[in-house]
Structures are given as C-alpha cells and as structure tokens.
C-alpha cells in the first residue's frame, strides 16, 4: 500500500472516531442525569480517563519505537555507501542535477543545496506521488538516501515557496532499466 494512502486512511479513521465519540455524547447530552447517576458517571469517567491515558501511552511508546528505530534521516557526516551520488543545486528558479539519470535498482544519495533562498527538493515518482524530499538550503547541504527501483521519468519539484517562479521550478530525473531504456 502506498504510504500516503495508508496515512490518509488512518487520518480518516481517527477523525471519524472522534466524530463518533462526539455524536454519542451529544445524543446523551440532553437527558439530564439525577445526582446518583451523575456520581456514578463521574467515577466511570475517571476510570475511563485512566484507560484512555494508558492506551495513548502504549501507542506513544510503541509508535515511537516503530517509527524512529529506522530513522529515515541519514547521518549527514559519514560515508553513506550509496551506489550513486547525485549533486543537486537549486536556484531561483531552476534545478541543476548531475547526473540526471541512474540505473534502476540503485541506492541513490542526493546531495542537495541552494545558491540563493530556501527551496524544497521533492522527488515525485512516475505515478505522480512524492517518494522522498529534503530542503535545499543556502550554505548547507542535505544528504538524502532513496532506493530507486522502478524505471521511468521522475520529477523533481520545488516544494518550498521561493517566489513567483516556484510552481514551474521542476526538472526531470531518469531511472533507466537494465539496458539503458
């Protein structure tokens, strides 16, 4: 499943769950409880609050471990062992990419910087979804590692607003199949 679709589904489920909780509470809101029922409800709410906290804590610990153990941000000051290194320079409003093609099945290191203002280096796959990105910053070089397995024409699109030429600031990047096609 594409990561963005998975995230979209999780968000939709989460927002729907919140909405459902509100609808349930609202449906009960107009029916006032007597004093005894209020006391019971207050005790139950206190217990439930503890459970909500415990579940969220479990989610926090488990989710943090799952998403941070393989940090997608590479260490910046060591040799990354990529198959190919691609130098990327952003400027108002162009990309200089060298080389501009790599063979499929490569682990590619993009070294991204800017000569003027902040730009955003976003690599769109042939199907039009973002595969990875990093910022292109003046005075800094950000190193991004991407596995490029699928041959085709990829698009580099600026994703950090950089002035009137921001939208057209894009370039093509080729991932060639074995045999060079």
């Amino acid at each position, binding site marked *: 499943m594409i990561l963005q679709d998975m995230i979209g589904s999780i968000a939709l489920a989460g927002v729907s769950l919140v909405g459902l909780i509100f609808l349930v509470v609202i449906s009960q*809101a*107009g*029916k006032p409880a007597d004093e005894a029922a*209020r006391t019971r409800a207050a005790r139950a709410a206190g217990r439930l609050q503890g459970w909500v906290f415990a579940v969220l804590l479990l989610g926090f610990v488990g989710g943090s471990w799952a998403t941070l153990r393989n940090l*997608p941000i590479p260490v910046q000051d060591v040799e990354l062992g990529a198959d190919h290194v691609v130098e990327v320079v952003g400027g108002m409003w162009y990309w200089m990419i060298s080389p501009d093609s790599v063979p499929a099945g490569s682990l590619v290191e993009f070294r991204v910087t800017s000569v003027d203002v902040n730009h955003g280096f976003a690599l769109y796959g042939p199907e039009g979804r973002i595969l990875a990105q990093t*910022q292109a910053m003046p*005075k800094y070089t950000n190193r991004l590692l991407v596995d490029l397995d699928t041959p085709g024409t990829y698009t580099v699109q600026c*994703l950090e607003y950089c*002035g009137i030429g921001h939208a057209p600031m894009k370039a093509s990047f080729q991932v060639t199949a074995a045999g060079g096609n």
Partner: protein
Amino acid sequence: MASLVLYPDDERLPRAAGITLNFYLVTALVLFLAMMALGLGMRSSQAGWLGLPPDWFYRFLSLHGAGMVGTASLVTTAIMWFFLRKYVQLHLWAFVANYVLFIIGLWCIVLSVMAGSYAGLWTILYPLPVHSQGMWSREAGAIFMLGYLGIGMGQLLFYLDAAAGIIARYGNFSRALGLQWLFGGEIDQAHPKAVVASTGVLIANTLGLLAGTVALVMSLANAVYPSIELDPLLIKNLIYWFGHMYPNATIYMGCIAVYELLPRYTGKPFVMGRPFLWAWLATVLYVVLVFPHHLLMDFAQPRWLSVMGQLASWVGGFPVFVVTAYGALVNIHRSGIRWNMPARLLVLSMFGWMAGIVPAILDGTIAVNMVMHNTQWVPGHFHFYMLLGVLSMALAFMFHLVGQRHGQVPPDSGGDRGSLPVYLLGGLVFLFGFLGGGRTSVPRRMAQHIDAWTLTDRIGSIGAMLVVLAMLYFVVRLVIGLLRPVAQAAGDGDGLADAAR
C-alpha cells in the same frame, strides 16, 4: 471555579472597556471574512475557476497567512482579557495598546503587500523577504517585517501586564499554574482555570515572541545592511519557534472561553483535578520543544532535534485527548444542556481541535513528513483546528456576548440554527479537500496546479464557498448584536444557568 451564572455581574464592562472589546471583536470579524474571501479566491484559482495571476496569488497568500494568524491572535487575546480581568488586575491601557499596535502592524502588512507587491509569505523565511528577484523591493520586505514587530510588541505588552497581574495576585507563576497541587493536597476548586491557562500561554508565547523578535531584528539588520549575512538554519529555527507558538497560543487562549462558558450552558461545574494541572504543565513544556517538527526535512539539523520534534508532537495529543476535550465531553454528557448557538459552537470547537490533531500528529512523524511535508496535508490539519476549533471558540464567545446585549438570552434564531450546519459541512468539505490533496501529493502554496491536482482543489473550493457564506451571516449577525448596548436582566444578574437551560 468558573461561574455557573450565565451572565455574572463581574462580566459587565465599564464603558471604555466595552468599547475597546467591541473594537477587537468587530475588527476580527471583518478581517476573518476578508481573509476567507482571499482564501476562497486562491482555492478557486487553483481549481481553474478563477484566473489569478501568480504574483497576485502569492500576494494574497502572504496577506491571508499573516492576516488569519494575526486575527486569530487578536480575538483570542480579547477572550483571555475578558475572563482573566475577573481574577487579576489588568490595565485597560495595555489592552488598548495591543489593539493600536496591531492596527499599525496590520497597515504595514497591507501597505507592503498592496503597494510594495510583497509576496514572501507570512513565514518570512530568510532570505526570501529581501531576495525576491525583482518581484518586490527590499523595502517592502522590511515594512512587512516591521508590521510583525508592531503586532508582536503589542502582544508582549499585553502579556507583561497579564504577568504582573497574575504575580500580584498569586505570588508567582508556579502557584498560578497550581503546581503546588501536582503531587498532593486538596485542590482549591475556586482556583480559576482561566488563570492556569493564561499563565501557561503567556509563558510559552512570550518565549516564542522573543524568538520571533530576534529573528525579525536580525532580518531587518540584513535588509538594511546586506553585508550582514545570517545563518539561514538558525533564522529558520527562530522563525518556526515563533511561527509554531503564535498560532498555537490562539488555541490555548480561545480555550479559556470553553472553560468559562461551557459549564454555564451544561449547568455542571468543570471540575479542576490533578490531570488538568499536569496537562497544562505538560503543554507549557511540550509547546516550547515542539517547533523542530517544522524542520524535519532540514537534515543539517542535529538528528536529536528532529527526534525531539516528533516526540513532542505526539506528546501534544495527550493534554487534549486525555484532559481538555475529554473533560468537555464529560461535562456535556447527560448534563441536560439546552442547545443554543454558544453551546453548539463550544462543542464544535472541541471537536475541531481534537479531530484536527489526528492528521497533525501523523504529519509530525518523520517518516510521514518525508512524503507529506509542504503538501496540502499541512493546511489540511492546521485549518482543521483553526477553522473548526479556534474560530468556533471565538464565535461562541461572541454569540454569548450578543446574548448579554439582548435580554441576557443566548442567541438561537432560525438563521443561527440554519447557518451552523452550512459552516460545519462546508468546513469539512474544505478540509478534506486539502487532506485529499496531501494524500495525492498536491503541493501547498502553489499558484499554478496541473490538471491531475484540480479535483481536490474543486472539492475544497465548494467547501470554502459554503464556509464564506455561513461566515457572512455570522459577521452581519454578530456585528449588529455586539453594537447593541448591554441589556439589564430582569433580576439584574440573576441570569442563572438554569435560565438558559
């Protein structure tokens, strides 16, 4: 504890204070509507229904961003002032000064955008404001930033006055936050939640404002003396410290209206417990540490900062889910609440805040940010808790005040009842247009969209039209209502919650 009396006597304002409050609220309403109209124009242009030239699109975007964030701050500052003044001494001059500096700042921003063609966006990311390739002048960028300085100075003045009042009343911030009850002791139920929230927000937002001020002064120095070069990563950190904190402070200031007003409409006290105090302490700490989640794609940052940004983003969900929204739901549950406009909007605001946090927390995850950063996912989540959360809090507060001016009966006309579903439905369609765009990798902040991106643009535009339509009704209704003189109640202050229920 917050009053259960619907319109207590201590909320009747002296004439000068009432006029000042009206200036805040009417200005905010007009600005909200104007900024929404700009937003609708931009979404319609992305949808291909309106041909905004790119330079105007980015000028409108700069105005919309600065205008919306500033207006949200203006109106929620009024909420904080209105309730905090009951518990500590606040000086009207500070409240007036904040308004005057806001208006001066606003005109600087308008002048910079409309006359100077400034289009460097509200985030003023160095060095773009002074490096436009001829689209706008260095002077226009500097005037825009001077406008920010004016608005920030006003806010700081207001916070300083609030801090002085809180310290004079409670001795120090720690006691105002109720930290003496964190581990034991009987919590004083008369200790106002408004004081806890105000103390928390003024600590955190003052730090953010100071960070922003440092960034602005350095950027202005660079604008005047280009030979003074700045470190772009350092400035980016400072800007996002301010840029995260300032809009988020509006939620916390607006939330005071929920603490104060919701119990009056449900007739049930909003109990102050240890979880509430812990939640506010956690909020003050996490909100100061969370800003690196805006720089997750800046790999030159130390990696521990990015990890801290993710962890703080996730921790940010706890106070809302476990305490504030949860407490509001408990307060509503089987309360016998009588539904009217303030009550409906207060409940909607809790939903908007709580639901909006879901996509926000996902975006604060580094692996997700890798594919969602600077896509429309981002405006999708922040509009969620700003539009349905903060704006609903502000509207609830204003509808409540209109009731005070209209026989001390909360508004609930047929027009009110009809406009709210339009606002909610339009809001959800508008928001899911953005979130859907993020899912399909549509970039944010882009004047020209390719054909493949226009489906979600069109969905979002339809939602935006409904929101603007509902907001137009709210603005007319509220401006007319707020400008009426305050009504005398039959029992002169005996407008108990029961009267509204």
